[in-house]
């Protein structure tokens, strides 16, 4: 599958997505795995009107979201979102401000637990268990599902200690030097900092700090990395580096990225979910599918309006 959306734009014809919803009835049990779900093709959920495109490749599901809702006190931020997060792919969450992208992302590693009054509903299946189950330890969830934030937030410690932090608190007993080097290499930062590992993480440039934060997340060896607008505070050159890095990391990790930037979603993601909030400001999933389908052949008028820049 081609990696670059813009080459796709030029080369590929719109994918055939107009599979009748009736094919769905052929499957009795809910498919745990995306290839089975793929056969369902496009279907319109009567209550939520979310459109799902057909997935044409063989791919596992890392996370399966089912009817995920989130509330902050009395305010409902997102309403019954259902979608798969394909394994070893980059999935982009796009949509205008306030549509619940970040909230949805923060549901996936229980970061919302830290906000007083926040509540989640529904189910996020991860390795056969529901992440949102209160009996599941949120600390364990976050160790396996890492996160990179909008603004780089390295600890006021040395570069080395920043990367080693997660491993230390998780009782890693192996060769710490190797772990740190490996994480920094994979975050494409090693060559720039190899001689100054004792320097404070805060002394780095913004782009380097963000790559340090990615290295820090990798060092815990998570399965999934959530990125909340990881490049929005960076200049174009640093942004490009982060995007390249995301593509490389997708070889080993499942990546979910929230972005405001349509071009970025097109450049880096394999799958895209378009979220939108109605007048009552409750975010809902509008359309989900392979990125090239969403961008070249959006089925929902609102998706088309958004990606063509008509609003947002």
């Amino acid at each position, binding site marked *: 599958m081609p990696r670059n959306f813009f080459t796709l734009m030029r080369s590929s014809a719109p994918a055939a997505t107009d599979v009748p919803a009736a094919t769905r009835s052929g499957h009795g049990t809910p498919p745990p795995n995306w290839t089975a779900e793929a056969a369902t093709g496009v279907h319109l959920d009567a209550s939520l009107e979310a459109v799902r495109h057909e997935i044409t490749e063989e791919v596992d599901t890392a996370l399966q979201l089912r009817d995920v809702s989130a509330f902050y006190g009395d305010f409902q931020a997102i309403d019954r979102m259902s979608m798969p997060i394909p394994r070893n792919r980059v999935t982009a969450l796009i949509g205008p401000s306030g549509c619940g992208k970040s909230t949805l992302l923060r549901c996936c*590693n229980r*970061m919302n637990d*830290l906000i*007083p009054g926040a509540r989640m509903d529904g189910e996020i299946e991860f390795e056969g268990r529901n992440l949102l189950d209160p009996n599941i330890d949120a*600390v*364990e969830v*976050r*160790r*396996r599902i*890492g*996160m990179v*934030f909008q*603004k780089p*937030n*390295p*600890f*006021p*410690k040395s570069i080395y200690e920043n990367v080693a*932090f*997660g491993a230390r*608190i*998780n009782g890693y007993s192996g060769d710490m030097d190797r772990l740190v080097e490996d994480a920094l290499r994979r975050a494409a930062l090693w060559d720039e900092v190899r001689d100054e590992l004792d320097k404070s993480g*805060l002394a780095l440039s913004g782009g380097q700090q963000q790559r340090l*934060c990615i290295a*820090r*997340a990798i060092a*815990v060896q998570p399965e999934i990395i959530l990125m909340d607008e990881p490049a929005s505070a960076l200049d174009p050159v640093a942004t490009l580096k982060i995007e390249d890095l995301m593509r490389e990391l997708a070889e080993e990790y499942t990546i979910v990225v929230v972005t405001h930037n349509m071009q970025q979603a097109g450049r880096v993601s394999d799958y895209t979910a378009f979220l939108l909030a109605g007048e009552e400001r409750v975010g809902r999933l509008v359309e989900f599918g392979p990125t090239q389908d969403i961008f070249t052949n959006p089925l929902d008028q609102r998706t088309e309006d958004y990606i063509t820049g008509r609003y947002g």
Partner: protein
Amino acid sequence: MAAQAPHGPQQDTVRSLLAELWRERLQPSRPGSGRETPVGRLIHGALFLTATLSAFVTIGIVLVLIFETVEFFREVPLLDFFGSTSWSALFAEKQFGVWALVWGTGMIALIGLAVAIPLGLMAAIFLSEYSPPRLRAIVKPILEILAGVPTVVFGYFALVSVSPVIRDIFGEDVGIYNALSAGIVVGLMIVPIIASLSEDAMRAVPRSLREGAYALGSTRMEVSLRVVLPAAFSGVVASIILAASRAVGETMAVTIAGGGNPQFGVNPLEAVQTMTAMIVQLSLGDTPTTSIEFKVLFAVAMTLFVLTLGMNIVAQWVSRRFREEYE
């Protein structure tokens, strides 16, 4: 002469007066801008005096201290003061080894810090990282009220509550006046300083750092101890040094509970005398102002002043030097 001019002299005067008034209206006087109304000048002067009064008082005190200390050292060699550990200013055989008093002060301050640092830091961590906002809104002001309890109350608290417990534990040989008892209440007295200032410093640590740590699978305790506390290091250390400086300068409680025995021993169950308690003792007596006992007061006070001033400077330096700047 006046008739030649198109305007009469009175008219000229009126005009210039009006012009003057206008100028004042248009350019409100500011200090240093030259023109000020008499009332403005009066207020300006009064404000200046108020602002500088405390500075003048401080300078006055320091000058008196220096002057009297110099007088003292004219009669007693420096070596007798700083080179000895025995103090007996009120006896016929006078000895002025200030180390006995510095030691007493230091021991009480150390005991106090040993009590206050763990208590204060735990309170700060609880308030900053664990407490629900509503509970903090109640607990923190109460903690700060503790700092306003008159220190004489702490002195009696030491005698009637702490010393009996110490005697229960260590036996009846221990006097009711002892360094441990005084040190413990001094510790309780400075807990609010450490707790309140450290909590301020910890709460100033950006939320994004906590989130970063949580996202790596940290527990609340790990976030508190390994991220927030180190990030607030400068504020925490400064609060401890300020608390120590308060402990060193503490007077009433240690005069009441510490006993009056200037000595250079390591046993905290013995009575000790601090610099401050010695100053109280000498000031209360009928010490003639020309006597050497009166003059040594100032030498001791000077030592104390230099000590606490030094600690405050170090506290400020630490908080500036180790401050982490976040956006």
